[in-house]
């Protein structure tokens, strides 16, 4: 196997991993922008996305296409309930407590998922069947195009939403200054709810599309949340595009370090790069000093 096809293969792997990190990172960013909370239960949205999709297609035999949208709707509802029950009543609480609340929610969600699905992993058939495609000596699964395509589409839609629609702009305004936003007549509470709903939807898309490749089980969430969190911070917290790009960067670094340096230290290499970036530029690759200073504990 020549070097070129190796590199292509690592790139494909890195992009696949990266697209998941990117979507989780984007989910983090949306909630962070509206509330200043780091939602450590973000990975559980992905888990629910995967497992609900499995339940709908395998148990209820709903066609894939329809099941995908029902999954998104259900996970979004989970996000809404989450916000209303656990986040909304705690308005006056310190950020660190809120972060711990998200950890507790993540434990609780895992408990529920275990209760419903048990501890076994589940698999999904790919969205479209077909043999791996050979490209420049590397093999690419058709599902990978789905994952990449869906995540790109999501990122584009999110960008349009935040920059072109009134609601999106209103949400961005909340990010800048909550008090000012509420004085402008923006319903901040509704915006926060919307941010949880959106980010749950993103998680669901990631979960449903990755399950055919990577399987899904009840306790997959925390690791995904960790990687997504890193992406969000590396991209400069609060910047959606930054999180997406950083997610892909982390995925590609991991895959290339596994390929060329050491698979045992692949995560460490990605993390060392992350930390070095933070030490040199404390507000992430794309962040500005000001954004970094907005929210603190």
């Amino acid at each position, binding site marked *: 196997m020549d070097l070129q096809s190796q590199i292509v293969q690592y790139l494909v792997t890195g992009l696949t991993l990266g697209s998941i990190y990117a979507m989780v990172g984007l989910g983090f960013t949306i909630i962070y922008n509206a509330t200043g909370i780091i939602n450590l239960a973000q990975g559980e949205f992905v888990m629910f996305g995967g497992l609900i999709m499995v339940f709908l297609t395998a148990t209820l035999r709903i066609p894939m296409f329809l099941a995908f949208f029902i999954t998104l709707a259900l996970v979004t509802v989970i996000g809404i309930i989450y916000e209303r029950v656990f986040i909304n*009543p705690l308005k006056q*609480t310190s950020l*660190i*407590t809120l972060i*711990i609340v998200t950890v*507790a929610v993540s434990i609780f969600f895992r*408990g529920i998922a*275990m209760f419903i699905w048990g501890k076994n992993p589940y698999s999904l058939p790919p969205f479209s069947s077909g043999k791996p495609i050979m490209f420049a000596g590397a093999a690419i699964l058709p599902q990978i195009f789905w994952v990449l395509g869906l995540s790109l589409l999501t990122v584009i839609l999110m960008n349009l939403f935040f920059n072109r629609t009134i609601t999106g702009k209103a949400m961005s305004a909340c990010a800048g200054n909550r008090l000012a936003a509420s004085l402008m007549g923006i319903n901040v509470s509704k915006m926060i709810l919307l941010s949880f709903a959106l980010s749950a939807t993103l998680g669901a898309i990631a979960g449903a599309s990755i399950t055919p490749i990577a399987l899904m089980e009840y306790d997959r969430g925390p690791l995904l949340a960790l990687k997504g969190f890193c992406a969000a911070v590396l991209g400069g917290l609060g910047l959606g595009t930054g999180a997406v790009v950083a997610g892909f960067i982390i995925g590609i670094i991991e895959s290339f370090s596994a390929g060329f340096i050491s698979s045992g230290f692949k995560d460490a290499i990605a993390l060392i790069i*992350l930390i070095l970036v933070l*030490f040199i530029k404390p507000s992430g690759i794309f962040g500005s000093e000001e954004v970094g200073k907005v929210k603190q504990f």
Partner: protein
Amino acid sequence: MGRKNYFKLLSLSIAVAVLPFFIRGDYYLSVLVFMGLNGLIVMGLSLLMGYAGQISLGHAAFYGIGAYCTGVLTTHFGFSIYLSFLAGIILSVLVAIIVGIPALRLKGHYLAVATLGIGEIVFIIFNEWMKYTGGPSGLSNIPGVHLGNFQFNSSFRFYYLVWGINLLALFFSLNLIHSRVGRALRSMHGSETAASAMGVNLSFLKIQVFVLSAVYASVAGSLYAHFVSFISPNNFGLMVSVMFLMMGVIGGIHNIWGALLGASLLTFLPEYLRVFNQYDILVYGAILLAILLFMPEGILEGTPVLIRKLFRQRKT
């Protein structure tokens, strides 16, 4: 430290001293030993986070450094217990300084992710440096602790060792909080600008308290290694760091007593929830959420508030 705190410390010491005579049995004593260890770590976190306002999501790393340092040095190199304990402390201090100087310049979530990353890197090193750490299979047959000829070879004896150290650390921490340095720490949390205008050297103080909390965690780690006699990287992963944080927040991280309370409760709770078998994770999550929803300031400060609230509601 005020008279009130002396009284509390004294009562706690008496309670700690007599407790084993009421609940004998290895199992309960072991739970109490873990309580003491977790309490020690969360106490350090409370100083760092509750008082100085600096977050750390990587404290399990220092816990692990203490454990692995003493574990590796005693099993592979035949070091004495004292030397290896000391080595653990020194290594943690060094790591805390090297990591702390750049990391503590960061703020809020950036500091959170930097400490988290460092914790994960240490975790990966435990996993991959197999020659000495034994990798994921762990390191076993770590010898017990002794003081001269006296062996801490039962949970009963170990209990006194751990809680003795814990109470010393509590004494130290309480003194610290009610001193010039402690006030500086809290002032930093109140307003960094004003604190520095009063001559508080922020970066030096942050490093100091970070190092102190690392030392607490490292000592706890060393004790853990000798108590369980087996360590593996899983004991020192990210989720463990988060759990320490959780203990602090549940008890009330802005108060050292709250931290101790939280650590004790969350060590005991999973043991109690054994009756739920595999569904304990669900019950556990629900209990944590209930506490956080009804007492977001933590149990220590939240309980009186909650009781008052209940009382007022009944009256109307």
